[in-house]
Every structure is written in structure tokens, then in C-alpha cells.
């Protein structure tokens, strides 16, 4: 039963990693931009939720609901005014600008919130659990996983069923031609990053209620998100969920063998997939 429990916890943890990764995947899919500050933006959103919860006394879920439009605006502005300037054939400017942004965010948060570990309290929900056959699952981890599924369903609906989604796909395929058809790629990019920041806010809600976080937690979240994307294969959001689950299970199994190995076994699972399936397990995009 112990192993079954370990694997279940890993699967549910994978939901969190899929939430980390969905925003990264969305932005890369549409504008071929890898945002090295993605993890720090997740941590920033967690601090925004924390600030709302502590100053207004609202529940974390209401806090996240209030933080989402703020993060959308921040993402929109970040893309429109800063990152759009870096896009082009050369991959160096966006990488270095987002790397600089990552350092700015980390140290800005250190100044604003000190280096202390923080946590968003979710009240009695934190310890609540539900019996699933022979094992118990915590309510919060379960909600994390279901939120990840819901986010992926929504994003897929948006991308493949709506006019905005068609504009996303058209701009992704060929921004110049899309521009000729009346789409403004600059605005589409800004909209996509804004949307990614809403997903980031959802991820931040569960990051903040699940465990402690601090201003320097960002890079590790970026790495988990990246590993989930690569394990799953570029361009497929369901693949990203599978990638997150594989990473989560590898980590919990590693931790069950030796608590010091948790992070390491996650990385090793990633390297194994890279070794045998360099294009990921469920590749979709051709680039």
C-alpha cells in the first residue's frame, strides 16, 4: 500500500508541475520565446497572493482571483513593452533579457519581502483528505491536479475552438502573413503572455498553499516546468501533463528511497527520457 500511496502523491504533485509548465509551453508555442524568468514570475504571483491574503484577510482562492487580473496586466505589459523588442531570429536577446529579469525579480522580492520562507495558509483544507479506495489523497493536492486538468482543457478549447486561438496559431505559424490578415502579432504575443500569467497565478496559488516558498525559489520551478515540457514533448499540453506526472512520480519515489534523492531522481528521470526519446514522449510540434 505504501508504494501505491507514494505513486499517487507523485501523480498529484505532477499536476503542480504541469501547472508550472503550461504557461511556459503556451508562450514558447506561440512566439518561440523561452522565458528564463518564468519560475520567478510564479514566485512573484505567490507573493502577490500572500500580500492580498494578509492585508485583506481574504481566503487564498479569493486572493488568487484578485491576483489573476493583476498578473494578466503585468504579463501583457512585460511582453508588449519589453519582450517584444527582443524577438527576432537571434535567440540571444530574449534569453539574456529574461535571465536579467529573473535576477531583478529575485532581488526585488528579497528587498520587498526579505529572505524568509513564507506560506499561504489555506485553513482546514490543508490537512483535509479523502479516501480513494485503499489510499488517502489530500484535498489540496487533488485540487491541484484537477486544476491542472481544467487549465489544459480550457487552453486547448481556447487554442483550437475560438477566434483568438486561431489568431494564436496563425501568428505562431507565420507572424508576417498573420499580420497581412489583420492580426497584430505584437498584441497577440502580449495577450498570450498575459494569459500565461493567469496560469502562473493558478500555479502560484497551489505552490504557496502546498509548501514554503522564498524569493529565490524561482529557478527550481523553472527547471521543473522545463523538464515537464521536454519529457512530454514540445507542443502538446496533455504531453506536458504526462511529463509533470512522470517528474512528480520520479521525485516522490526517489524521496521514499532516500529523502536526499528527491530532486536528483527527478532530474535523472528527465535525463533518461532525453537519452531514449530526445523529442519527448508525446511530441507534436515539428520544431
Amino acid at each position: 500500500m505504501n508504494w501505491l500511496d507514494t505513486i499517487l502523491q507523485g501523480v498529484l504533485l505532477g499536476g503542480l508541475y504541469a501547472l508550472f509548465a503550461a504557461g511556459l509551453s503556451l508562450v514558447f508555442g506561440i512566439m518561440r520565446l523561452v522565458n528564463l524568468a518564468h519560475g520567478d514570475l510564479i514566485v512573484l504571483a505567490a507573493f502577490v497572493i500572500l500580500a492580498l491574503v494578509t492585508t485583506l484577510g481574504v481566503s487564498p482562492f479569493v486572493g488568487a482571483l484578485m491576483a489573476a487580473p493583476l498578473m494578466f496586466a503585468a504579463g501583457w505589459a512585460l511582453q508588449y513593452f519589453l519582450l517584444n523588442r527582443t524577438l527576432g531570429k537571434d535567440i540571444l536577446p530574449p534569453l539574456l533579457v529574461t535571465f536579467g529579469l529573473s535576477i531583478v525579480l529575485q532581488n526585488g522580492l528579497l528587498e520587498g519581502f526579505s529572505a524568509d520562507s513564507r506560506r499561504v495558509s489555506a485553513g482546514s483544507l490543508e490537512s483535509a483528505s479523502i479516501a480513494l479506495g485503499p489510499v488517502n489523497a489530500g484535498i489540496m493536492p487533488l485540487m491541484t491536479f484537477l486544476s491542472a486538468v481544467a487549465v489544459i482543457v480550457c487552453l486547448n478549447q481556447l487554442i483550437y475552438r475560438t477566434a483568438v486561438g486561431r489568431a494564436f496559431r496563425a501568428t505562431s505559424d507565420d507572424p508576417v502573413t498573420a499580420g497581412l490578415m489583420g492580426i497584430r502579432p505584437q498584441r497577440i504575443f502580449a495577450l498570450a503572455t498575459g494569459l500565461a500569467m493567469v496560469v502562473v497565478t493558478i500555479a502560484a496559488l497551489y505552490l504557496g498553499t502546498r509548501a514554503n516558498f522564498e524569493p529565490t525559489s524561482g529557478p527550481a520551478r523553472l527547471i521543473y516546468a522545463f523538464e515537464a515540457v521536454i519529457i512530454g514533448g514540445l507542443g502538446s499540453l496533455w504531453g506536458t501533463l504526462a511529463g509533470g506526472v512522470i517528474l512528480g512520480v520520479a521525485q516522490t519515489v526517489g524521496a521514499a528511497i532516500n529523502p536526499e534523492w528527491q530532486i536528483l531522481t527527478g532530474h535523472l528521470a528527465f535525463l533518461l527520457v532525453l537519452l531514449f526519446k530526445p523529442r519527448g514522449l508525446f511530441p507534436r510540434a515539428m520544431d
Partner: protein
Amino acid sequence: MSLVIPSWQVETRKKTSAPFALSAGATLLLAFAVPFLVSRGVVQDLFFILTMLVLAQNWNLLAGYAGLISVGQQAFVGFGAYAMFACVILLGVDPLAAVLIAGVLSMLLAIPTAFFTFRLQGPYFAIGTWVIAEVVRLLLAQWKALGGGTGTSLPREAIRDMVGVGLMRDVFGMKASAAGDTLTYWLALVLMVSTIGFVYGLLRSKQGLGLAAVRDNEQAARAVGVNARRMKAFVYLAASFITGIAGALIYVQKARISPDAAFSVIDWTAYVIFIVVIGGIGTVEGPIIGVILFFFLQNLLAGYGSWYLLILGLIGILVMLFAPRGLWGLFSDRTGIQLFPVRRLLRGGSLNRTHKGGPHG
């Protein structure tokens, strides 16, 4: 009737080359004499500048010339440092020999590393190198003989009995600690000069031309027979060798190691990227300007804690946006001065500028 064949010559020399070579030689002589002229604190500062410059030249070679943007060079700094510690503490090797062994081991580490990271394209390569650095850090943090997660120190005798220290004590009458600092400083100087020599020599060679072609247009370069993959792999291995040596040398001087410090992404990659970006990526001169500026900024702002890093990050972003070729790029564009010219110029023969069209366009 004789056909005059214009005798073309390919040259990279510039008007400034001779005076620059002279003044560089004089500066080097002065640099070797520095430990006799200034205090130990200054020698340690210069050691820091030299080793950061070596790391910056390597990162510049990777990112600015080979298009390999790595944010995981701390893997080789930390691995080189740990390899040196292992040789000294566990095998009793002399620290100086251990530094060389560390370089070779770092290059060996780069082979499996390249095998994984080269499967990732463009921006994902960058994060892939970061993952590798994390894996190496986590593995070495498990090595209990070297202090595990908390780290360990070099035994005092190892530095005191280091090859050359005794000689310098006898000849110059230095204390062991001062002799150690002087020796590591001289080695850093030699390493810096040979790194710049290697990078500059590579860029001027046929391989360097191929490398520049790959950077500018990989498909076109491959079409004319440049083996892009082999070139990139060679640069990656060479950079990891030198980075490993630099890492080991830095930690001979520090004499205390821990996984978090030796694999710090801020210390060994963020600072290095800042140096290269602000000085001018893709030039040999850029990192030299960058490291000097970085050193002054650090002394100026070190008291401000995290504001310091925040300002460095902002400067980096602004330079990347508004002067992507850095300070040296701005200077070079205005004056046309290049201290390490790599551009090939045709000299001799007569340039027939009015001739257009024809079979070769």
C-alpha cells in the same frame, strides 16, 4: 602580352595592431611584477578579476561565437573545484598538479554532458545546461568524504607545501600565505593570457572562420562544408577544460568549498554573462572592458545587498535592448579601432569598384 594577376593578400592586421601589441606586452610585464609593488589585498582583487575574465572569455566563446548559450557553466567551475579538492585531500596530489587534472576531468565530464544538452535546440539548450549543473551539484553534495552538503576545507599544509611556495619563500623572503597568493595570482595571469591567446588564435584560424560562418548562418555554412556540430562540440569541450582549470584555481585560493558556493549560478554564470554582455558579446575586447567595469560596480555597490544584483540585472537588460553589442561595440563602431582584429581584409591588387554584374554577380 602578359596577363596581370593582382596579388591579393588576406590580412587581419590593423593600424593599431603594433602599438597595441607593444603596450599589451608592457602591461603584462608590469602585471607580473605587481605582487612586489602592492599589498596582498590588491593581489587578491586582481586574482578575482583575472579568473572572472577567464570565465567570461570562455562564455563569450560559447555564446558569442559558437551560438551555445549556456547558463550552466557553474557545472564546470564546481566540478573542477571538487576534482581538485578530491585529488588533494583523498590522493595527496600537489594542488598545482590537481588544478591540471581538474581541467582534464572537467573536459571528460563535458563529453556525456554534451551528449545530453546537444539534443536540445536553441533556448532549451540553455536550461538543459542548468539542469546538468544541478545534477552535478546534487551528486557531489552526496560525497561524504568531501563534506557532503556542508563542504570542506583544504588542509593548511597542502597550500604551505605547494610546489613553488617554498622556493618563493626562500628567494623573495615571503610568508607562506603571501607566497600562496602570489603564486595563484601568477597562475591566473598565465591562464588569462593563454585563454585570450587560444580564443584569438582560434578565431583567426580556418576553424574560427568556420565558426563565424556557423554563427551567422548555420545552413549556409554547412552547405559549403563546415561541420557545424563538430565545431560546436570542440568549442564546448575546450571551454569546459579551461573553465574547469579556472574553477580549480579559484578554489585553491579560496581553500574552502561547499556545493552551494561552487555551483552558484549567480557567481559563476550570472556575473559572467553580465561581464560579457556589458562589455560586448562576440568580441575579445568586450569581456576585458566588462570585467573592469564589473569590478568597479561591485566595489561601489557591494554595500547595498540585493539592490546591487537588482541594478546589475537592470543594466544588463538595458544594454541588451539598446546597445546589444555592448560598450566595446559602441566604441569600436565610432572609432573603427579593434585591438584583436579577426575580420579578414583583402589587401594588394586593385579593387575595381565600378564593375558590377557579370557571372558572379
